[in-house]
């Protein structure tokens, strides 16, 4: 028993280091003086703290705009995915209807076609619809990536909350919607938070479609990738850091809900 705990701890430390070390190195690199980055050998910690490269990156052309675009696209993707995923998952778990299993499989087939195949038709269609090079357009394609998972995850979450809770609430005086809001919704909130994290990260990480479908209104990753070759080390560190921070902030906000509720769910 004790041995197992020790092994468990070692594993946790290794996994944590695997995630944390790059984050720490990127953070250090970002706040190291520019010339020091090219020195060899150099110490782990820089000689002095400076936000020069951070600021120069932030001020370089298109970055703030890209950050704004990325955040908006990601938030829209979260909203769209939840708007589709929650009702669909709820219906799958609560109602019987024709073609239910076909629907479940059908949802996944949206991921069957690589975006590379769809690239040219997609651009053509987007231009026709007038959403090429727009935030909304990128959010749409990111939603396409995220919503199958949103549906499947919410389906299993709703399935784990007994329908009798809603029925009990309805008998006691709630409408169907009111019963959902008062019983099921608070119980599935942590799961929905998890879906939100998932959708956010899918959107935040996505480069190819974002590059393809935008020209001036690039998201941050699309912008950085476009400039990757012709750039300096300090710029790279700063851009990596820039990518990291909003993601971490978002996860920390959502995480609170995640932890607070798991403790009492479904007893």
């Amino acid at each position, binding site marked *: 028993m004790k041995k197992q705990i020790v092994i468990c701890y070692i594993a946790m430390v290794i996994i944590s280091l695997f995630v944390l070390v790059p984050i720490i190195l990127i953070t250090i690199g970002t706040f190291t003086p520019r010339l020091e980055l090219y020195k060899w050998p150099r110490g782990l910690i820089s000689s002095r703290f400076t936000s020069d490269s951070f600021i120069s990156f932030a001020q370089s052309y298109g970055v703030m705009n890209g950050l704004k675009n990325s955040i908006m696209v990601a938030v829209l993707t979260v909203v769209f995915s939840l708007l589709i995923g929650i009702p669909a998952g709820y219906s799958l778990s609560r109602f019987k209807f024709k073609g239910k299993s076909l629907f479940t499989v059908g949802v996944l087939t949206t991921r069957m076609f690589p975006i590379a195949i769809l690239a040219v038709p997609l651009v053509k269609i987007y231009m026709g619809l007038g959403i090429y090079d727009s935030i909304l357009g990128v959010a749409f394609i990111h939603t396409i990536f995220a919503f199958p998972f949103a549906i499947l995850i919410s389906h299993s979450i709703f399935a784990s909350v007994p329908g009798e809770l809603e*029925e*009990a609430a309805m*008998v*006691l*005086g709630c*409408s169907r919607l009111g019963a959902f809001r008062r019983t099921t919704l608070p*119980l599935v909130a942590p799961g929905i938070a998890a879906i939100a994290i998932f959708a956010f990260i899918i959107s935040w990480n996505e480069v190819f479609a974002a590059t393809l479908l935008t020209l001036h209104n690039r998201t941050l990753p699309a912008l950085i990738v476009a400039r990757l070759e012709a750039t300096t080390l300090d710029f790279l560190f700063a851009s990596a850091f820039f990518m990291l921070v909003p993601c971490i902030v978002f996860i920390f906000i959502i995480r609170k809900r995640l932890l607070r*509720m798991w403790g009492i769910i479904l007893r």
Partner: protein
Amino acid sequence: MAEVRLENVCKSFEDVKAVDNISLHVRDGEFIVLLGPSGCGKTTTLRCVAGLEHVDKGKIFIDEKDVTDLPPAQRGLSMVFQSYAVFPHMTVFDNIAFGLKLRKASPDQIKERVKEVARLVQIEDLIDRYPYQLSGGQRQRVALARALAIDPKVLLLDEPLSNLDAALRLQMRAELKLLQRKSKVTTLYVTHDQVEAMSMGDRIAIIRNGSLEQVDTPERVFNHPENTFVGNFIGSPPMNMLECNIVEGSNIAIGNFTYKLPESVVKAIRKTKTSRVILGIRPKNITITKDRRKNAFRAKIEVIEPIGEELVVHLTVQGKLLTVIASPTQDLRMGEKVWLTPDSRKIHIFDRKTGKNLL
């Protein structure tokens, strides 16, 4: 308090008729038990009354008001589910207060009422706990308190005791009955346990395959079963059913034996003009003797089960199995040949074709 009336209620799921033309009148303040084997449609009937299922045909009235198309919230009833369905994210207090808050009661009123019902079901000390900190029996009480808090016109109970252990079930059975007597709320109680039904119900509605077989007091259901199904289903061990033929007017033939029927029984049967019948007799109403008596027939003891205050004796009569309850003071051996005398006042004669009680 209210009466509940079901008129020709039907409900099907795909091609299965769960409720098949049930009409039932539950009187004001009555404790009625819907009893039947699992899958007979008793829970569906209850859910139709609650409004959780929409009936295909027929009408449901609560106090002369047609509620057939009303949502559950507007029927003024409450329900205790088999799984209790206590809200896991709320304290016991909030669970009980749930219905009161929806009815926009003032905080003081809520507090007082919650206290009152919590005391009634003896959970005052648990009011601040969450359901996961409670035992099954305590959760059951919370569900009951939540249902009673809103002063329902009708209380629906769906196998509320089936998830409790045996000792607790006995205790809750008595408590529930007492509670109902005190609050005088019209109660529909679903169970598959005939002992529960007999001990709690003012009347019992026996359901099979979605249809009512008999609605009567426990005493009537036990002593005057309307058909073989009810005779078999009520009572433990079940009623003995012997297929036999009526011969020479007042005798019936059980294999090689003839058994003389009392005059009143003969009169009743003669009207129906059938001769192929089933003789029903409860295990308690047969006497085992070693010496031959008038109107007795021979049987062989196969197995004896001593269960404390009585013996359950399994015998064969001409290859047919029979159960008799005897006193442990009787000296009986397995394999022994004995004589059986049915109490002629306690026999039932059923039509073999329809299963209907002919008396």
